[in-house]
């Protein structure tokens, strides 16, 4: 720092053009007992709650209150200045991001939801994670068709539906999470990622609107005795295909056009996608063009080469699809920094592909002792569930963990318990308890503890 610290004592420096540098923060930490340190923190636009800082703060109060800003004294923007509203410019940091090095082709890649910054259980549509296999499209909905047909007479009446047809049908609106089977995948062996956006950001939760697949299958005259499986296929270049068991297809699977009150976003399958609650995202086929009914599984590329679990004996488990019970603390979380000691509301998300979240426990001592968190309503089946718990940080190192239990009684496992069964070579279905280390310097980092 080039500026003589004595210069800043007793007056407010203009806020730095960019931000408070780590050096400044570090100096403020080190010099905490000195008058100069307090003044430094003050000078960088900080408000310290000590007597000295209070002295530095003008006796009358702070400028944010005493000096009326332009937005209080001027004329604001008109209605409909933005035909479709945008987040505040101050929120520009919360964006979907790729994980550098994860993939080399951005058309066959992933962008992660910034879970560190979202509230409640609904993911804003513009922050919903993306996974494309061959790039995304914005398809003309008037030309989109859905075909339902079957092998060997398993569908008596093969049908074609336009979007007009589908949207006339009886619809449901339901809140469900979608999680990529590869969420948290890079951490089977060791810690690899800095923040919850990259460790867990391939999960999102939306209200989906559409017609139940069972309604369409009944309309088309499905032979429920002969039919055993359904193949869903997309209309994009990859024409993604996945096998879905018939009991799922006839239960809560939705052929959806709506997402959070509007149409699906193009990145999420506009104008039509499959919603397969509780099952990994790859089965939620986007740009859905075809449903075929059959009596054997298809072993498509994404169920024969990818989305298969590599077991220690060298075999691969094929057709695993349930996203088992999982949770993660989103604040405080990896690569965040606490600004003070004292009270924090630890908050996070829990979900289960088998049902509802029954309970979430939180530990701040690396899993030795646990307290039960508050579940914020609504608590819905196969949906994200928000939990909160009070915590007072005493400035000592702490290891934060959350552990979810679902309505089947299944308890979210530790990473070593997962490894004991599935080894470390697997890529998919990693639902271990996540640990965040809060260091004495206030920084939170990703660690593995069990």
């Amino acid at each position: 720092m080039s500026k003589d610290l004595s210069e800043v004592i007793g007056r407010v420096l203009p806020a730095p053009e960019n931000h408070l540098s780590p050096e400044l923060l570090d100096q403020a930490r080190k010099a905490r007992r000195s008058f100069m340190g307090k003044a430094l923190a003050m000078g960088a636009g900080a408000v310290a709650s000590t007597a000295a800082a209070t002295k530095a703060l003008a006796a009358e109060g702070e400028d944010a209150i005493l000096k009326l800003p332009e937005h209080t004294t001027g004329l604001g923007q008109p209605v409909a200045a933005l035909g479709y509203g945008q987040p505040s410019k101050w929120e520009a940091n919360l964006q979907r991001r790729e994980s550098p090095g994860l993939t080399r082709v951005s058309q066959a890649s992933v962008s992660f939801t910034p879970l560190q910054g979202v509230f409640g259980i609904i993911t804003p549509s513009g922050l919903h994670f993306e996974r494309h296999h061959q790039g995304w499209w914005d398809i003309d909905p008037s030309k989109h068709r859905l075909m339902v047909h079957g092998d060997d007479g398993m569908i008596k009446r093969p049908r074609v539906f336009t979007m007009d047809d589908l949207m006339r049908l009886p619809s449901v609106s339901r809140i469900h999470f979608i999680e990529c089977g590869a969420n948290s995948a890079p951490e089977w062996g060791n810690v690899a990622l800095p923040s919850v956006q990259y460790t867990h950001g391939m999960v999102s939760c939306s209200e989906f609107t559409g017609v139940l697949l069972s309604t369409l299958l009944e309309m088309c005259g499905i032979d429920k005795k002969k039919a055993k499986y359904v193949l869903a296929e997309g209309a994009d270049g990859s024409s993604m295909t996945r096998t879905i068991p018939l009991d799922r297809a006839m239960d809560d699977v939705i052929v959806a056009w709506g997402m959070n009150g509007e149409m699906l976003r193009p990145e999420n399958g506009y104008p039509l996608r499959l919603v397969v609650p509780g099952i990994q995202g790859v089965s939620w086929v986007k740009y859905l063009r075809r449903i075929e009914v059959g009596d054997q599984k298809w072993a498509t590329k994404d169920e024969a080469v990818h989305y298969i679990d590599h077991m220690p004996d060298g075999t691969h488990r094929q057709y695993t699809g349930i996203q088992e019970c999982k949770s993660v603390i989103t604040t405080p979380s990896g690569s965040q920094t606490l600004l003070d000691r004292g009270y924090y509301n630890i908050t996070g998300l829990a979900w289960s592909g088998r049902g509802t979240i029954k309970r979430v426990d939180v530990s701040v001592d690396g899993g030795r002792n646990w307290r039960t968190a508050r579940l914020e309503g609504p608590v819905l089946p196969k949906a994200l569930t928000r939990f909160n718990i009070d915590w007072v940080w005493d400035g000592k190192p702490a290891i934060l963990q959350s552990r979810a239990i679902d309505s089947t009684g299944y308890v979210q496992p530790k990473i070593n318990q997962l490894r004991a069964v599935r080894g470390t070579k697997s890529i998919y279905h990693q639902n271990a308890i996540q640990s965040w280390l809060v260091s004495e310097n206030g920084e939170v980092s990703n660690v593995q503890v069990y």
Partner: protein
Amino acid sequence: MKSKFQQTLHAVALTAVLATLGTGAALAQSKPWHDIGRDAKPAEIKAWDIDVRPDFKGLPKGSGSVSLGEEVWEGKCASCHGTFGESNEVFTPIVGGTTKADIERGRVKNLEEGSSYPQKTTMMKVATVSTLWDYINRAMPWNAPKSLSTDEVYGVVAYILNLAEVVPADYVLSDQNIADVQKRMPNRNGMVFYEPLWRVDGKGDVKNVACMKDCPTDAKIRSSLPGFARDAHGNIQEQNRVIGPVRGADTTKPAPTAPLTQKISVAAPVVLAQAAGGSDAKALLNSNSCTACHGVNSKIVGPGFNEVAAKHKDKAGLQAYLIDKIKNGGAGVYGAIPMPAQPQVSDADATAIAAWIAAGAK
């Protein structure tokens, strides 16, 4: 003697049953929305029903030789996957890691514990030859899916199988002999089905208990992010909200060394700069998949754009030359791997990209 009430109940029930029968066998037909949509025509079903199952249901008649496959491969596949399907540059390798012993056994040794083989190639994993046929037919080539003829798909599958030593170099793969080839797939016995993770009412394979107090753990840190990876995902400070109980750490700098003992209230928000100006051409490079094979400043499969710009600096008619190369492909200028034609790039995009390269690719 039944009561009058019981008789009435019986009559009501019988009437209901008769009514159901009378309106037709399928309950669905009684739904008022039953006739929404229209019947699919056979030609329409044929056009879209392209899936091929492991029992080869759906496989069209046809055949293709290894040499036909090689020809297609060199023109349309090698640029991403390498001449021998071995490339790890753009996608994970297709071929490699399998042996003659694997073909005998139907299990791939390199997938087992203790293997030091660095990759899991497609041929190591895939158990069903139908999967290769189906996927290549539906989704390849990368930028022109579904453009291969049926015989070309057979040929490309044959070429891959030959590279993996499943079939000899003079093999002609067809719908007649593909079932024989299935019996030689190196990992054909390597798949298991674990039903509890497929059925929603299954019980998982990993058990934990909800201990609450003095639980068995030494709370030891077994793994943490190495220091050199601190900023591998960019500056996390610019990936967190500018208000609230926490901030993102500035990962461009080392972590603070001193303990936090005093409140730090950072008033100046760190908001990410919006996409920098002059990035229009770069956005086009992404949206047109150019960056799959070319870095701005680095060779990937093809040369970096900076290398292209430097090589042709001051060349007359450079922009038109580059538009032609983008649209029609080229070979031999930067090495053996050809650049496939990119007909999907619009004229406007090709012009803008060519202009950007001609101006120095910066």
